């Protein structure tokens, strides 16, 4: 095996440590800026675990982020009515677990579909969940659920630490998955699903596992955002967020370890700068840039780097 893998992992974890320390020492505005970037990074990694590796276009991945968010607020309200409350990490973990369970339940039916049918089904599910939330009294309908006071008051540094831990977890998980049967099985499914089945890969089981794993980390990110705003509302399930995650992994390099990291950093910096400079035109410029980038680097930055590095026998994972 070529000397690869190892340094991609150290690079990503090293980068996380770097922005972690910088975020903690700098002023809270920078912490909040990095917090938003790391949140997008986690979502990109969670999408990469499923779509990146298996090639199944999941356009409704934000539904797990939303469900994670609602798990925290619903459980916070529920527990407080019984006079109890949990430490925040338990809430966040609960958010991830619920999202993963939901993925397992919904995964069986829709993972029997392929390609474009699957993409549309995920869109449908995201909308169906959002509409159902909007119409259920207990879930706060359109107004959302407010838990100000039920969870520790807003402290961006603490939230940032929790988010970094989740980011560490998702990066290490991606590395492990890429090195084990799950990773090879998923990449085989992406290349040619029927042949993968014939080569011994239990395709239906592996797709579900990846789907639930991705959902778990998206749920964790959702849990943290509810703690940040002390409320959760249907806008968390806005389809635009799925597009952001998607752009991040396409820009960075789909199905790789470094791809989601590079992609989300570039995506966030460019989008934020454009948003502040051109309040009205930012999406036009961003749209044009996205298209040119996709046509030029369909394999993303890591893909490009690999083409360059391949001559020297090294490949970025």
């Amino acid at each position: 095996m070529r000397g690869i893998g190892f340094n991609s992992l150290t690079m990503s974890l090293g980068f996380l440590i770097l922005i972690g320390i910088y975020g903690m020492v700098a002023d809270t505005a920078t912490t909040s800026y990095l917090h938003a970037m790391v949140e997008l990074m986690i979502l990109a990694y969670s999408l990469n675990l499923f779509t990146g590796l298996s090639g199944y276009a999941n356009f409704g991945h934000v539904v797990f982020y939303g469900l994670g968010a609602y798990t925290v607020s619903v459980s916070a309200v529920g527990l407080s009515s019984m006079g109890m409350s949990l430490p925040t990490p338990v809430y966040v973990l609960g958010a991830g677990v619920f999202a993963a369970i939901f993925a397992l339940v919904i995964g069986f039916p829709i993972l029997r579909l392929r390609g474009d049918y699957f993409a549309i089904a995920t869109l449908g599910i995201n909308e169906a969940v959002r509409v159902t939330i909007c119409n259920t009294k207990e879930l706060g309908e359109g107004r959302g659920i407010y838990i100000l006071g039920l969870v520790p008051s807003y402290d961006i540094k603490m939230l940032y630490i929790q988010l970094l831990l989740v980011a560490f977890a998702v990066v290490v998980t991606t590395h492990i998955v890429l090195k084990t049967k799950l990773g090879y099985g998923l990449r085989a499914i992406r290349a040619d699903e029927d042949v993968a089945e014939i080569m011994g890969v239990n395709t239906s089981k592996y797709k579900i596992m990846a789907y639930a794993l991705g959902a778990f980390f998206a749920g964790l990110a959702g849990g943290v955002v509810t703690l940040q705003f002390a409320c959760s509302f249907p806008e968390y399930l806005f389809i635009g967020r799925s597009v952001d995650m998607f752009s991040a992994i396409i820009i960075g390099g789909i199905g790789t370890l470094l791809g989601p990291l590079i992609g989300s950093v570039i995506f966030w910096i460019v989008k934020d700068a454009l948003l502040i400079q051109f309040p009205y035109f930012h999406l036009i410029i961003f749209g044009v840039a996205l298209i040119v980038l996709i046509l030029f680097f369909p394999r993303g930055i890591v893909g490009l780097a690999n083409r360059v590095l391949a001559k020297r026998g090294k490949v970025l994972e």
Partner: protein
Amino acid sequence: MSRMNRESMLVVDNVTKRFGGLRALNKVNVEVKRGEILGLIGPNGSGKTTLFNVIMGFYHPEEGRVLLQGEDITDLKPHQIARRGVGRTFQIVRPFGDMTVLENILVSGLFSVPRGGEHRKIEDRCHEILKITNLTERINDPADELSIAEKRRLEIARALALDPQLLLLDETMAGLTHAEVDQALQMISGIRKEFGLTMIVVEHVMRAIMSISDRIVVLSEGRKIAEGTPKEVSENEQVLTAYLGHRKGS
């Protein structure tokens, strides 16, 4: 293991497969002994590939059963059959394009051992297979960049990595030059000696199939029309008509 005939590796028992009105396989009975190379020939559309897909569990037969070493595998999923040691190659090469040659082989390697033996042991076995199918120098190149002949050998290597007991070779010689066919024949007999494999080989290159098979089964329009040693089959009247069509005046 099998109460019936001890050395029978695979029994295709009275299998019928229909696609709408078309009867692709019609009550086909085939038996392959352990360590034997069975040639499977027949004109295009005679059901050879369909039979492979039924054996691999990709298609489910309307009637009949498939037994692997006495165990009924008719209702198993392809990956379960593969893990029971049945490897297969494809008529039109289907490599895992964006994965390297080694990774292509690692996929089946990892899934062959039921408990998923540790990485190191599997990797050594893969390197050995690469040597036999002389793909070693292309080890880290993406499968897309291989030549047709190399991709054909990769298919065989990938099937071998499953540590199979039964190998299904689907026209691995098609489109090869004379020299390349001889090379392939040599490799297949080498594999047979090295791993003691039972094989079913589908081939249109008569010279190759006749020389390598112990026994030959001939299919036409989904039915078995002849069976026997290569010599018997090549003189069989029905086989010639099936292949060459009716001779004038006969």
